[in-house]
């Protein structure tokens, strides 16, 4: 059975914003943040995203699992890919530059030349602002948007019924998978299963988690067939669909859409007309490492 995200009405400003306006704003932030590497623009977008996030009145307890997942992604992208290996900065940060530790560093008694540059470090900060801006506006959606509103929102935004409903189902896939995983985990624990990651080689470890992965995967496949059958048996796709959940724009929704368009237009203008899309390091940043 498809499960919805853990949404609850908080009477927050976000609860009163039309989901269409929210998606338009969120995509405006996404495109604005990915258009440029200019630190000033990224910082401005970042501040806007924080303000937007605060409108949801979400607590840490509500969203900690989501942020945990994002932290893993951030760690991989920023710490591993940008700071340690430098691979993520390729093509954006010019080669060479000022070393953060010109004389190397002493780690566990060993002298290491890390090759980390001030420019790459600033790139990591810029990337952090960019990813956090996007994460802030999108992570709050499942927690602050009524599960009944997804399909109608995508439909009213112009997507065909099939695609709109597919989008709704996709949003519900993650919590469904999490729930199925928990049920399977309980069922296998009841048969003496204990996850012991420390034992065996990689093949043995995969075999060890097979009792979890196979039922969850098979259920996901079978469920998708069931969902398709259940939809067909109730005439889905026969004609233009209507929606029980009603959406209505208020004046503030129009204001948010106008602001979104203005933000994106300004970013594009600054990036392409005033050539502010390329990566650059502010002077004060160099000052921190002298």
């Amino acid at each position, binding site marked *: *059975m*498809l*499960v*919805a995200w853990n949404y*609850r009405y908080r009477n927050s400003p976000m609860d009163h914003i039309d989901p269409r306006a929210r998606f338009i704003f969120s995509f405006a932030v996404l495109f604005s943040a990915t258009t440029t590497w200019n630190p000033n623009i990224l910082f401005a977008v970042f501040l806007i995203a924080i303000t937007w996030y605060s409108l949801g009145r979400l607590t840490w307890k509500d969203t900690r699992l989501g942020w945990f997942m994002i932290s893993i992604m951030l760690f991989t992208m920023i710490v591993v890919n940008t700071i340690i290996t430098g691979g993520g900065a390729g093509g954006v940060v010019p080669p060479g530059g000022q070393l953060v530790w010109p004389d190397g560093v002493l780690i566990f008694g060993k002298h290491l030349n890390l090759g980390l540059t001030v420019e790459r470090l600033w790139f990591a900060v810029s990337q952090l602002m960019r990813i956090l801006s996007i994460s802030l506006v999108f992570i709050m959606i499942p927690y602050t948007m009524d*599960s*009944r509103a997804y399909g109608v929102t995508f439909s009213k935004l112009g997507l065909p019924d099939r695609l709109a409903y597919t989008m709704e189902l996709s949003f*519900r896939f993650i919590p469904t998978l999490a729930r*199925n995983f928990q*049920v*399977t985990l*309980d*069922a*296998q*624990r*009841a*048969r*003496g*299963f*204990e996850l012991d990651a420390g034992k065996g080689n990689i093949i043995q470890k995969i075999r060890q988690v*097979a*009792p*979890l992965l*196979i*039922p969850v995967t*098979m*259920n996901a496949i*079978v*469920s998708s*067939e*069931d*969902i*398709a*059958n*259940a*939809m*067909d*048996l*109730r*005439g*889905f*796709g*026969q*004609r*233009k*669909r*209507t*929606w*029980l*959940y*009603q959406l209505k724009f208020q004046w503030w929704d129009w204001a948010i859409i106008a602001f979104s368009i203005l933000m994106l237009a300004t970013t594009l203008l600054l990036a392409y007309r005033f050539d502010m899309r390329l990566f650059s390091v502010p002077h004060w940043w160099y000052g921190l490492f002298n």
Partner: protein
Amino acid sequence: MTDAVPLPLVVKDLSFQYHTRSTPAIQNIHLTLEPGQIMLLAGSSGCGKTTLMRCINGLIPHSYTGEMTGDVLIHGQSVHGMGLSQISTHIGTLLQDPERQILGTYVLNEVCFGLESQGMSYMEMLPKAYKALERLHILHLKDKETFFTSGGEKQKVALAGVLAMEPDILLLDEPLASLDPASAHEALLAFRELADEGLSVMIVEHRVEDVLAIHPEKVLYMDDGKIIYNGDAAGVMDAVDYSRIKLPAPVIARRAKSHPAPHFQPTVPKIDPQSQPLVSFQNVRFQYKEDTPEVLHGINLDIRAGEVIAILGHNGCGKTTTVKHALGLLKPTSGKVLLEGVDSKKSTVATSAKTIGYVFQSPSQMLFAATVREELAYGPKNLKFSPQQVEDNVNWAIETVHLEEELPTPPLALSFGQQKRVSIASVLSMRSRVLMMDEPTAGQDYWNYQSFMSTILQTPGFDAIVFITHDLDLALIFANRVVVLYGGEIVADGHPQDILQDEEKLNKWRLLPTSLLKLNQQLWPKTGQYLCAEALSQFI
């Protein structure tokens, strides 16, 4: 002269063989269904009932491929030329497992799904949805999230979603499977009412006795893909093997008179009231989250060696939640659960599995192995049994559920009923001291569940057995103690004959007296104990 109005449903010489199977699932099926008629379709697991339904509602050949001959006519029009969506305007289908059918996140949205697909306006769909909800007495659930409804409520919600579309043919695939007796009775009355209003209703159901109570105009009995009986309800009583489907107890008792009574002697040890409880619930309270209502309100329950306990109660009363506490899958919000004297908060589930074997409701969420044999060996291997013990346990478990021939088969390729039996066997093979089963008979035919329940209870090795069931007959035949939960509290606990004799209380707890219970009460002066219908034949 006017042409005769075509019947809502005609099945002509229909045969179907799945591409993955070597033999036909159904052969030469003929049937007709008129407006206002209820047809009961009965038969043991794997007899072809579900395949026939799939042919009628269009899932075959649209979703399941194979070789189909013959025809299905809906109002005179062959389904061959119709799309699924077009068929759905005439035929409403309620699938066996409502969780596979529910799409909406809230009840009202779920009920309106079909109406939305038909392009109805808000003002058109709302009265239809309300009418469907009211008919099933679940209007109060309209703003509830579907995920948080109980099993029985889900069944009703799914049915309301079908009814809201106002089909003229209703196909119901085991609609009573997850309902408590009172809910099942209410659902059946609703089906009768719908038929009386002109709908054609086909019910596939193992609980034949229950459906006979609403006087179906036609009864079909299938075996091995063929129709064995097609006639009225009175005729089926003598036409079919009484051990295969659940007929009313007086009928079974009458027909079984000439056969030797089955011998049933449970092998659990004698109850010693002074012994240390295997499991002890001490004022257990539980709520899933801080902001959700409390589910269990102070459960006190000791399970001792020698006890065969049936846990009864209405849908959503907390039966599964209670049992999950015994294994430590859930921890009490307050109070304690002790397993052989050890607090469940201080032990792991894997450790507890050595004492308690717990069979989950849904088999598909645990089956993973390449063969049934490997599936059954998984638990004992985890518990570090010797290879010989594993082998012996696997063989014993598979014999208990009568699936010996399926040992080399992938469990996920089996039917739902067979998967359920494999899931039970995979826990049996661990030979835990206490066996706990959650709805072990759901989706099973009469012969299979009677047979494996008596086999389990007559097999040495278990100190105690606990099973959750909606089947009152199962409790009175097999249990020596009945625990009734109502609204998260234990409202009755004792011998079956003490608990089940008060009809008024049973009705209040949504457990309706069955024909077997009534016959047992009638014959009590002669028997002095509760017996199955076959055994009662000797006292008539």
